[in-house]
């Protein structure tokens, strides 16, 4: 069975999570990461609506309408989970207690700005917890398609969309590459199987530092 790009990106993102990390997964593609967490790792997933310790989706019998994740899906809890208020939830986020946050993205800029909440002219739904998360978690990983549906780059010199946070992203993972945001700029670290460095450079508007790149990394 061949994996979709979304699944491949989620599998690579999982490798960024360490044993005993507290992790927040954003809505959409980031939620898929939960399906690939290695059984060798104990990982506590935070849900910003007030839960530490998200478990698998429930069976029909286990469904509890009072138990949802931030995407409003019914879930279960793991042993050792805890519930708390929304204020406490974001206190632990802003307070720097979450090890890793994995978020979706519309655009990322050369200096790590993230835009992922609003497209001018389209209906504004709201930022939810994204603007708080990008300032709180120790490591911010953005996972997204390398280019938009019309083929235009999403990793740009400057974001053209309204920002979620300025200079907040640490790593970008797409179906083509893994890019680190450093004080020197964007460093291309891994190019995934099926793509060349040239492919990545051509589909990226931002300048990439190409020094120490692993090639043909399989996902």
């Amino acid at each position, binding site marked *: 069975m061949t994996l979709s790009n979304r699944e491949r990106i989620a599998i690579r993102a999982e490798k960024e999570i360490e044993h005993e990390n507290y992790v927040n997964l954003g809505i959409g593609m980031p939620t898929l990461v939960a399906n690939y967490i290695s059984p060798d790792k104990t990982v506590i997933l935070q849900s910003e609506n007030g839960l530490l310790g998200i478990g698998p989706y429930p069976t029909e019998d286990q469904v509890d309408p009072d138990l949802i994740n931030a995407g409003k899906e019914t879930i279960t809890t793991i042993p050792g989970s805890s519930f708390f208020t929304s204020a406490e939830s*974001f206190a632990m986020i802003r307070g720097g207690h979450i090890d890793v946050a994995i978020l979706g993205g519309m655009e990322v800029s050369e200096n790590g700005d993230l835009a992922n909440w609003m497209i001018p002219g389209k209906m*504004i739904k709201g930022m939810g917890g994204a603007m708080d998360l990008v300032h709180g978690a120790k490591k911010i990983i953005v996972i997204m398609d390398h280019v938009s549906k019309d083929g235009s780059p999403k990793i740009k010199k400057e974001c053209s969309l309204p920002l979620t946070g300025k200079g907040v992203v640490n790593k970008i993972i797409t179906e083509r590459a893994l890019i680190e945001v450093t004080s020197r700029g964007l460093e291309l670290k891994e190019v995934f199987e099926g793509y060349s460095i040239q492919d990545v450079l051509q589909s990226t508007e931002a300048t990439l530092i190409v020094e120490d790149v692993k090639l043909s990394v399989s996902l």
Partner: protein
Amino acid sequence: MKHIFTSADEAVSQIQDGATIMVGGFGLVGIPEQLILALEEKGVKDLTVISNNCGIDDWGLGLLLRKKQIKKIIASYVGENKEFERQVLSGEIEVELTPQGTLAERIRAGGAGIPAFYTPAGVGTIISDGKEVRNFNGKDYVLETALKADFSIIRAVKADHLGNLIYNKTAQNFNPIMAAAGEVTIAEVEEIVETGMLDPNMIQSPSIYIQSMLQAKQEKKIERLTVR
């Protein structure tokens, strides 16, 4: 002993046109269902609503939207509601979008006697436009102000007659902080027991924050049923 209303209609009778109300819940989880239905029935207008979301088209705060009872909403995410979209585009409703953590902290601050606070969320985005930004230890923070309400309507799973509250799982969310930030807080509770029956160690909202209660059965509609 706190007053226990015998009907939802009676519970919302004090809420008048133009009131500012906080409504507990995240999505449809932990919303005070019967109090919202009673507000729809009563037809109060020009409400300013502070709530994380705005319900769906036919449930929760979506019911008040449909009847155009809401003048302004302060929320973090409102994307589940078509009628909402229509009213925003036509200018019938004013929306103040606030990062979710900022919303929670503004409410917490309101109930805790803190008029304003600095937060990193929104710095360098349109959210900080026109607000004071100040640098602490090399990092920028934006000044956000506290929120209070004329009425907070919230939901708990259990209460005693004194108004001590316990919440269920993720139905806690914004409810405890809204309980403290309401001038008058009305708690809709699934079960009210005799004072002394609840373990003081387990109380999540101390009774001091609660002015009155309504015991009511909840439908607990599910927005996104997801199973294995």
